[in-house]
């Protein structure tokens, strides 16, 4: 009898919980959307937003990032792992501290964050029109598994439910690239993703709209503004790495083992060229002012360790430039840094000195563009 009582009690609690969840989710439909306040203290430029908010296509954050960059005549820097923060500064840190450039450079970067991960945002958000973008192209994405579509990276940065919603009307070129990256999900998982996506949206009515409306300062705490805090992370050195901490024979950091992994070039893969071509065309259609940075490859390391692969990595790099030329895209050519000593920390990531050399090229381009 005692057991039955307990079971019945637990069942009742379960029912109350389910009713409560259903009740609040229905109430969520009546909670007004929270918008970023329009006042001088919110007129600055956002430095970055969370990948999670991009993945969910959370308009509160994506709209604020895009409009704040445009309003301040800034640039949005997009890139893969080479564009992640570096301890002694990356190229955008140098750009952000250059007083001759009267604009800020906001950043979104991550391993495997190639062009296709931005297609849903570019397709679905009207605020991309007129946005100035610097997009880093790393030739290592023509090597190994990276030379092909990658479900793991794609699903890390793009929710398939969001993608299906964003790709309206369907752009066939974009769709082809995205389909190649979409995980092959069965019907049950797809329904699950769709449910998760929409439940999350309803949840945001509370965690975001209601919570921030009650206390807007909470919203402020979730934002990373472009301000003096960013500038204080300043690169302190633009000199070549010290030879005690750098292996100049192989053009990598002293602690890096060139045999720890390999990046075999795959010039036969046309996937990255297709992706780049689609990005250029999509940006033209959507009015994005995009400038590509054609990144260098570690020519010295290839020459010493895998000389037989040097022609292939050169072909990968040349193919990248060929696509940019054929499509009439604006780009900053940094491929001549490939054979410069001190530029690379490993096979495909630059050092802070490499970042400084890349910064110099971007700086010249931006100054010329501003004075044009």
């Amino acid at each position, binding site marked *: 009898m005692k057991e039955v009582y307990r079971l019945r009690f637990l069942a009742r609690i379960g029912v109350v919980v389910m009713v*409560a969840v259903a009740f609040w989710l229905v109430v969520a439909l009546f909670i007004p959307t929270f918008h970023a306040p329009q006042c001088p203290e919110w007129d600055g430029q956002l430095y970055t937003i*969370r*990948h*999670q908010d991009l*993945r969910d296509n959370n308009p509160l954050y994506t709209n604020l990032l895009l409009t704040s960059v445009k309003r301040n005549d800034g640039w949005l820097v997009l890139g893969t792992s080479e564009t992640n923060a570096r301890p002694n500064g990356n190229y955008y840190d140098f750009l952000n501290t250059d007083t001759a450039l009267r604009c800020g450079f906001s950043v979104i970067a991550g391993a*495997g964050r190639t062009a296709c991960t931005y297609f849903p945002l570019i397709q679905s958000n009207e605020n991309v029109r007129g946005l100035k973008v610097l997009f880093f192209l790393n030739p290592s994405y023509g090597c*190994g598994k*990276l030379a092909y579509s990658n479900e793991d990276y794609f699903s890390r940065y793009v929710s398939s439910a969001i993608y299906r919603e964003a790709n309206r009307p369907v752009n066939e070129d974009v769709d082809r690239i995205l389909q190649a990256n979409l995980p092959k999900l069965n019907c049950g998982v797809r329904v699950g993703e769709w449910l998760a996506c929409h439940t999350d949206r309803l949840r945001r009515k*509370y965690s*975001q709209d209601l919570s921030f409306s009650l206390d807007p300062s909470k919203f402020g705490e979730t934002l990373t503004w472009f301000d003096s805090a960013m500038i204080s992370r300043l690169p302190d050195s633009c000199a070549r790495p010290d030879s005690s901490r750098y292996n100049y024979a192989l053009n990598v950091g002293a602690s890096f083992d060139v045999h720890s992994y390999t990046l075999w070039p795959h010039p036969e893969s046309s996937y990255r060229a297709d992706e780049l071509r689609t990005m250029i065309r999509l940006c033209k259609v959507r009015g994005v002012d995009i400038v590509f940075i054609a990144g260098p490859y570690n020519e010295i390391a290839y020459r010493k360790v895998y000389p037989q692969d040097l022609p292939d990595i050169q072909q990968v790099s040349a193919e990248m430039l060929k696509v940019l030329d054929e499509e009439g895209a604006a780009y900053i050519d940094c491929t001549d840094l490939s054979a410069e000593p001190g530029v690379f920390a490993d096979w495909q990531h630059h050092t802070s000195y490499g970042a400084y050399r890349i910064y110099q090229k971007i700086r010249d381009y931006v100054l010329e563009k501003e004075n044009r």
Partner: protein
Amino acid sequence: MFWKRKIVKVLVVVAVFALVLLLLMHRVEGDISCLYTTF
């Protein structure tokens, strides 16, 4: 005794509703990892 039980029941229901509301209002912090997968 009857009212006491009634009051406890109402309090339990109110507490469950409040708990669910609190959980819904909680913002999940942190972000997606940007590290590399194996090549």
